[in-house]
């Protein structure tokens, strides 16, 4: 028992260090993005300097989107395969996704105030992301309040799946109100409508945010492992 326990905890240890290294490298990359965005990317003429918030807001939204989609996918897989790794990953991804949503939901209004003239508007995409944020806060609150690990995994997998299917419904229902949000400028069928310097900055920033997502999820996953090892040791004692 102690043998396998300490092997598990040393694996968790190594994973935690790797996650920390990746995250720190990504934060360093973020510094690079700042230099590129502030020094070497032209100022958009109509929006002024505030337009550069875009280089943080969009990648943060991207990471949050990946995080929440993966929660949905791993939740569905968990109910099928009952592999505890899937549950650990879903929990990690949800928490990290909430952190990225927090960045998205703060940088968004800061950009909207000078550009749209209002901090917040009930536009389709804003409302959707706000509710996603609430949904995953609820998901984490649920995880925090179920004691039995197996039961916790099943419950949160159900919420994860239902949440994934809720997204198109919230989007559809809010979309029927007129939408103000700028349309996607990169991921659309025709050629990207962004000047090359701006596109380059955006793509670098997206890569950095993706790396940060990987690092944070790795670290959070290692935390889950370490806590399980701790709880097992507590049960053995």
């Amino acid at each position: 028992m102690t043998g396998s326990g300490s092997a598990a905890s040393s694996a968790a240890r190594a994973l935690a260090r790797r996650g920390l290294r990746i995250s720190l490298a990504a934060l360093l990359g973020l510094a690079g993005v700042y230099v590129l965005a502030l020094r070497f990317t032209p100022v958009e003429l109509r929006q002024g300097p505030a337009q550069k918030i875009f280089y943080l807001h969009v990648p943060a939204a991207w990471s949050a989107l990946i995080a929440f989609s993966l929660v949905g996918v791993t939740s569905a897989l968990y109910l099928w395969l009952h592999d505890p790794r899937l549950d650990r990953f879903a929990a990690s991804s949800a928490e990290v996704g909430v952190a990225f949503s927090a960045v998205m939901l703060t940088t968004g209004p800061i950009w909207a105030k000078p550009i749209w003239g209002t901090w917040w508007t009930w536009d389709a995409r804003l409302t959707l992301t706000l509710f996603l944020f609430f949904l995953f806060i609820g998901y984490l609150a649920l995880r925090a309040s179920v004691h039995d690990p197996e039961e916790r995994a099943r419950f949160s997998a159900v919420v994860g799946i239902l949440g994934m299917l809720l997204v198109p419904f919230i989007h559809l229902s809010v979309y029927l109100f007129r939408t103000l949000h700028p349309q996607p400028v990169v991921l659309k069928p025709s050629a990207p409508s962004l000047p090359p310097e701006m596109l380059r900055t955006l793509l670098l920033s997206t890569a950095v945010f993706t790396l940060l997502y990987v690092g944070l999820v790795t670290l959070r996953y290692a935390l889950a492992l370490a806590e399980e090892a701790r709880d097992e040791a507590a049960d053995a004692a």
Partner: protein
Amino acid sequence: MPPETPHNVGYLVAAYVVAPVILAGYLTALWGRVRRAEGRTEGRKDGRTERRKDGRVDGLEGR
């Protein structure tokens, strides 16, 4: 001259400060939680049961 470019550097600075504060803050908190979880496992290796001083059970964090 194109239409006048607005002066809104303040908003830019605010956003560029807020974002890393949130992300680095989360990373720090996460690392702290990892260290605490590891520390307690280590303590148990001596065969002693370690309790937190305030005797509380972990709540929201770590679940």
